C-alpha cells in the first residue's frame, strides 16, 4: 500500500540521516495529511507531475518538504538515489521546497508565498473553466504572515471554491509555542470570518482527514475551504513528539536507530 505513514516517516528519517538535515519535526506533523491528499485527492493524469491538467498541491510551509519528497518517492517521481544522496554536493533536493523539482509547485522557505500563488492558480482554473483543484498547506506559525490574510480575503471575494487551505496546527513555530509568540486563537474562526467553509480535524487520523476534505469539497457554497488539522510536531517518534528541538536537531547513528525503532513499535 502506497503512502503508508510509517513508510513515509522512515523515508524522511533516511533522508535526514543521509543529509544531516533539520526540520524533521516539521515534516512529521504533515505525514497523514499528505498521505490522504496524494492517495485520494490529487489528480496527476498519467502520473505526470507536470501534466497541465493536474490538481495543484502547494507546500507553502516549505520546511516540511521531506514529507513531500517521501510521497514523491512513493509516486516514482524521485529515485532511491535521490533519497540516499540527500544534501550531497551537486544534488537537486534542497532543505526547503524548490519549484524546479517536478512535483513541487512553489519555492518556499520564506513563508506566506504559496498561499497567494495557490489563490492565483485557483482563479486561473476558474477563468480557464477547468475542474482543477488547488490545495495549499500552510503551517500555523506561517499564518503570522500578512499575505496569507490578503489572499484569504481575495479568495473569498472571488468565490474560489476550488481552493482549499490546510493548516498544519502543530502549535509550534521556530522559536517556541505559537501561543507564546503570536497567539492565534481559533484558526477556524479566523478563516470562517474571512469567508471560508471550514472544518477542524485530527491531523493524524487519515479517515477523518479524508472525510473532512470530501465534506468541504462537496459543500454547495461558493466559499473557499479551510481544513484545520490539529497535529503533533514530530509525530510518530516518541522522543520527538511535541519537542520543538527537532525543528533544528540532526540525527546521529544512535538517534536514527532509536527513531526507526520508535516508528516500528508505534501505533502510527
Amino acid at each position: 500500500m502506497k503512502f503508508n505513514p510509517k513508510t513515509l516517516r522512515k523515508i524522511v528519517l533516511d533522508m535526514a540521516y543521509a543529509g544531516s538535515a533539520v526540520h524533521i519535526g516539521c515534516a512529521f506533523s504533515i505525514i497523514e495529511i499528505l498521505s490522504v491528499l496524494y492517495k485520494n485527492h490529487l489528480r496527476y493524469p498519467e502520473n505526470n507531475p507536470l501534466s497541465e491538467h493536474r490538481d495543484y498541491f502547494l507546500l507553502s510551509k516549505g520546511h516540511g518538504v521531506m514529507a513531500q519528497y517521501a510521497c514523491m518517492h512513493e509516486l516514482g517521481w524521485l529515485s532511491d538515489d535521490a533519497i540516499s544522496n540527500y544534501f550531497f554536493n551537486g544534488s537537486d533536493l534542497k532543505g526547503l521546497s524548490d519549484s524546479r523539482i517536478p512535483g513541487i509547485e512553489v519555492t518556499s522557505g520564506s513563508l506566506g508565498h504559496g498561499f497567494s500563488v495557490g489563490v492565483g492558480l485557483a482563479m486561473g482554473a476558474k477563468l480557464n473553466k477547468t475542474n482543477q483543484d488547488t490545495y495549499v498547506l500552510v503551517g500555523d506559525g506561517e499564518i503570522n504572515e500578512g499575505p496569507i490574510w490578503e489572499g484569504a480575503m481575495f479568495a473569498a471575494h472571488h468565490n474560489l471554491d476550488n481552493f482549499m487551505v490546510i493548516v498544519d496546527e502543530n502549535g509550534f513555530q521556530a522559536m517556541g509555542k505559537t501561543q507564546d509568540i503570536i497567539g492565534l486563537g481559533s484558526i477556524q474562526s479566523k478563516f470562517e470570518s474571512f469567508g471560508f467553509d471550514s472544518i477542524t480535524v485530527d491531523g493524524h487520523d487519515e479517515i477523518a482527514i479524508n472525510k473532512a476534505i470530501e465534506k468541504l469539497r462537496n459543500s454547495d457554497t461558493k466559499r473557499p475551504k479551510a481544513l484545520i488539522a490539529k497535529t503533533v510536531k514530530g509525530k510518530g517518534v516518541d522522543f520527538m513528539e511535541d519537542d520543538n528541538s527537532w525543528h533544528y536537531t540532526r540525527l546521529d547513528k544512535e538517534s536514527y536507530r532509536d527513531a526507526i525503532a520508535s516508528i516500528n513499535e508505534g501505533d502510527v
Partner: protein
Amino acid sequence: MRQALSDVLVELGKKDPKVLLLTGDHGYALFDDFRRECPNQYINVGIAEQNMVGVAAGLARSGFRPIVYGLSAFVPIRVLEQIKLDVAHDHLPVIFIGDGAGFVYSHLGTSHQSTEDIACSRVIPNLSVYSPADRFELTQCLSIAYRNNSAAYLRIGKADRGDVHQSLLNIKSGELIQVKKEKEGRYSFIATGSMVRTAIDVADKLHNINVWSVPFIKPIDRSMVEKICHNSEAIVVFEEHSKFGGLGSLIAEIASESSPVKILHVSVDDQFSQKCGTYEYLLQEHELDFSTVHKKVCNYLQSV
C-alpha cells in the same frame, strides 16, 4: 505618456485575451479605457500588493499574461521578494509596471517616492528592467516586454516632460538610443527616464556632446556601452534614482571592466527628501534641476 500606457494596455488586452491587468487599487482614471474595452481582463486586487504578485504568479502558471500595476514605491519595492521567488525564479511572464518613480509624488513624501527601484530590481535574475523616457520608448518597452514572454519591470517616472523622440522607434531590446549626435563629440551623456530631457537640454547649452537614452537597463547592449565609453573623454550619467545601483553604477561596472573612463554621476544622493513642494522644488532639493545640473556638468567637464 500615460495615454500611451493606456493605449498599449488596451491594444495588448484586445489582441490577447490572456492578458490580465492587475492593480493594487492604484491608477485612478488611467484604466478607464482598458476597463471599457477589456472589462473581464481587469482585476483590482485591493490594497494588498504582496498577494497581488503571488496571484499574478499563479495566473501566469495557468497560462495568463498578467500585467501588474502599482506605484514604484510598492511595485517592485514592497514586493521584491514575491517578484524574486514567485515570478522571476520560475521565468514566469509577468510584467510589473511601477508608476510615479523618482519624485513624481513630490508633495506626498518618502512613502510614495522611489529612488531605489532600479537598484533593487536589476539584481534579480531573469527579470528585465526598462526605464522609458517618453511615450515612444514606453510603447516600445511594453511591446518588447510582452513579446519576450518573461518577467519584466517597467519603470515610469515623470510623464509630462515632453517627447524625446519624433516618432515610434524601431529598436532592439538592449540598445541605447542616440538622441543627440555631434560630429566632434568628445563627451557622452547617458541618461534614462525623466532625465533624458535634462541631459538633452544641458547638452544643447554646450558643445561636442553626444546624448544617449537608455530605455533598457537590463539586459543592456554591453558592446554599445563599451564603444561609447571608449570613444568618450568623459561620461555624464543622468538618472532620477539613487547614485547607488542605478544606471550610473551599471555604466561604471561595464566601463571599469573594459573601457575605463571618467564618469560624473548626476543622480540622487544617499538621502531621503527633506521638504514638501512641487516636482521642480524636489529636483532642486536633490540638485537635479536644470541650472544646478548644468553648472555641475560644466565644472566637471572643465576639470577632466
